[in-house]
């Protein structure tokens, strides 16, 4: 897609600019052209030129600041669309997409129709010029798409690629100049000579690239999203917009994925539904379960809960073209014999409840507490999402022998600064918290807690904790920060409240 940046700009600004467009970025202190549009290209401008040179040649040119992140977002959207053709889609920087269509082309009655379809989809999405090439290896396709004059270009062997100029090898500019000076103009000129020569003159990376472009060496693309091993998709002849039909299709797909899971004796933890709308919008809905699942009913129920919880519901618009359902993460399924114990049933039921709640409110809002071996109070526990499998742990230590170092059931994540009046022995006499004065009738402490020197400091130094009770029966857990430091002005904090 040679004019990606201008296509993106036209699409965003929705107007036709009659002047040639160039996209400018600073490089080495000079404003350089990062990209040009078709008109500017035909008038002789190229990316890499200095803006001043371009202006000198074409005073009418319109310069726009390049926006690489917007371009990247645009191309990722296009990559989403390409998922309709193959699950394995990769970005081919800076302005291309690589699709692994191995085993996919027969679904479209051949490569030519597939290419035509892709061309149509991309031009609907706003790409003005698409250069397509189909070749046995990704590097050969890349060279053909960028440097071949035929479009779309189909290559079964290296014949076409050999006719390309040496620039198709995409070596460094000085290497390209060196090749030209040696009289080597096409890829064939280079390929026909022993590669040892080039390895000695240039580097072995050059010969490796040559081998890949010629298709002698294959390198697989690394797809944006790893295609799931367990997936089912339904392509619609006509876009479907009816909710009932969509739900029915989804149920079928989920059943099919679950059958695949059963066949491999695994269960899924994360499931994702992908919805491709006729106008090119892509929507992904993901649900997660706390234990491996392969019951379509459970998954579909979670899916419905997720949809209900979304602020923007799944809008079919003019209908969905393609619905795809995948198990993104699977775990071995441990076949368990149904027991008669009610306890196992309850465990399952609670796991399902946790799944539902996590889907409705987000996994980080449904939590479990986990003990951590630390004597700094706020570090003694971890809050983990309840959908994660709970590692075995022991709270028992806190249940016995806690009279000496009693902790409140609720603590403030950031201790509240309070005003404390203390007597000569530094025991608190009165506490002012949230603008209310509490006279202390009873104080138990101090319980001294030192910093853990092997970890980063907590910010409060050595603390002296007191459990204090006011004359009305309010019970607080307060501490004096930097207790060993001394000094006139002591800093006190309220860390928690006992019920």
């Amino acid at each position: 897609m040679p004019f990606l940046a201008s296509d993106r700009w036209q699409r965003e600004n929705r107007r036709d600019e009659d002047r040639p467009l160039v996209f400018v970025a600073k490089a080495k202190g000079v404003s350089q052209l990062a990209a040009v549009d078709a008109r500017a290209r035909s008038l002789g401008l190229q990316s890499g030129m200095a803006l001043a040179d371009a202006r000198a040649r074409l005073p009418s040119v319109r310069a726009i600041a390049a926006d690489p992140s917007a371009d990247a977002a645009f191309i990722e959207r296009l990559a989403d669309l390409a998922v309709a053709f193959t699950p394995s889609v990769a970005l081919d920087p800076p302005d291309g997409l690589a699709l692994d269509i191995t085993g996919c082309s027969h679904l479209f009655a051949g490569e030519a129709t597939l290419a035509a379809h892709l061309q149509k989809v991309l031009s609907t999405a706003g790409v003005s010029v698409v250069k397509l090439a189909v070749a046995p290896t990704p590097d050969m396709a890349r060279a053909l798409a960028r440097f071949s004059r035929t479009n779309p270009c189909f290559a079964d062997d290296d014949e076409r690629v050999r006719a390309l100029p040496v620039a198709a090898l995409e070596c460094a500019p000085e290497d390209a100049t060196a090749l030209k000076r040696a009289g080597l103009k096409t890829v064939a000129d280079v390929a026909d000579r022993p590669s040892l020569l080039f390895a000695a003159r240039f580097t072995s990376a050059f010969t490796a690239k040559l081998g890949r472009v010629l298709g002698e060496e294959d390198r697989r693309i690394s797809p944006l999203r790893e295609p799931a091993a367990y997936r089912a998709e339904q392509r619609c002849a006509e876009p479907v917009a009816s909710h009932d039909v969509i739900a029915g299709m989804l149920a079928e797909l989920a059943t099919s994925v679950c059958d695949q899971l059963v066949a491999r004796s695994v269960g899924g933890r994360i499931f994702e539904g992908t919805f491709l709308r006729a106008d090119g919008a892509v929507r992904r809905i993901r649900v997660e379960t706390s234990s491996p699942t392969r019951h379509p009913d459970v998954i579909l129920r979670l899916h419905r809960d997720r949809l209900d919880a979304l602020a923007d519901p799944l809008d079919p618009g003019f209908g969905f073209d393609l619905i795809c359902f995948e198990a993104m993460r699977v775990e071995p399924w441990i076949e368990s014999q149904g027991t008669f114990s009610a306890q196992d049933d309850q465990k399952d039921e609670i796991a399902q409840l946790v799944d539902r709640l996590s889907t409705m409110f987000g996994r980080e809002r449904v939590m479990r507490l986990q003990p951590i071996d630390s004597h700094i109070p706020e570090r003694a526990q971890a809050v983990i999402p309840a959908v994660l499998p709970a590692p075995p742990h022991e709270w028992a230590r806190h249940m016995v022998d806690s009279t000496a170092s009693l902790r409140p059931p609720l603590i403030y994540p950031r201790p509240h600064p309070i005003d404390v009046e203390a007597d000569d022995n530094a025991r608190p006499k009165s506490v002012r918290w949230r603008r209310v004065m509490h006279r202390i009738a009873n104080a138990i402490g101090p319980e001294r807690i030192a910093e853990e020197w092997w970890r980063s400091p907590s910010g409060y130094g050595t603390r002296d904790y007191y459990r204090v009770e006011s004359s009305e029966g309010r019970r607080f857990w307060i501490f004096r920060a930097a207790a060993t430091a001394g000094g006139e002005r002591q800093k006190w904090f309220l860390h928690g409240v006992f019920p």
Partner: protein
Amino acid sequence: MPLSSISAGKASVLLREVVAAPGHASVAVGFGLALAVQTISAASASRAATLLWVREAAAVVETGDAYGPGLAAFGLSPSGCIIIEARTSVDALRAALEGARCAALGAVVLEMRAPIDLTASRRLKLAAEKSGVAIVLVRLGGHGEPNAAQLRWRVQAAPQASDRMRRTAFEMIVLKSPSGLDGRRSIVEWDHDRKCFTQALSVPMDAVPGIGSLAA
């Protein structure tokens, strides 16, 4: 002197509400958790059932984060506790309703700052009656606006007699009860070891409505 739980005597009381006296939000939360723990341990002495603790985000700001070591010392096993921090009061009600429908749960505690109206509480009550899960509503403030709760107390802290602040004392006033003991004031202590409330002062225990009648 242990007091038997509600579910032992009156199985029908599944929706109870605790209203915090002004400034005693954490106390009300503690009392609500204690009620839930008592219900769970009385219903199934042999095993630990799960407690679902739904907290509105505004309530978390007021009372602080749940703290495992402290909960363990209070008699509530943190590993048997699922905590939800709901963004809004509507989310909190939805989560509590979802929990009330799950019969495998031991109890649901719903901690809210916003009032719980008649419709929402009635929905909770119906779900609880179907599944048999006890629900404790904890309101951090307000006056106990009318809703479907069968029992309602206002709770505040009471000075502890002794025991180096180990046992927690609560002062409670009945705001609503089926037996018409409204306005009665009593003080109970929470026994975290035996997971039940005990009498703190020389008040005849039958007179503490909702907590239960005197048991041997």
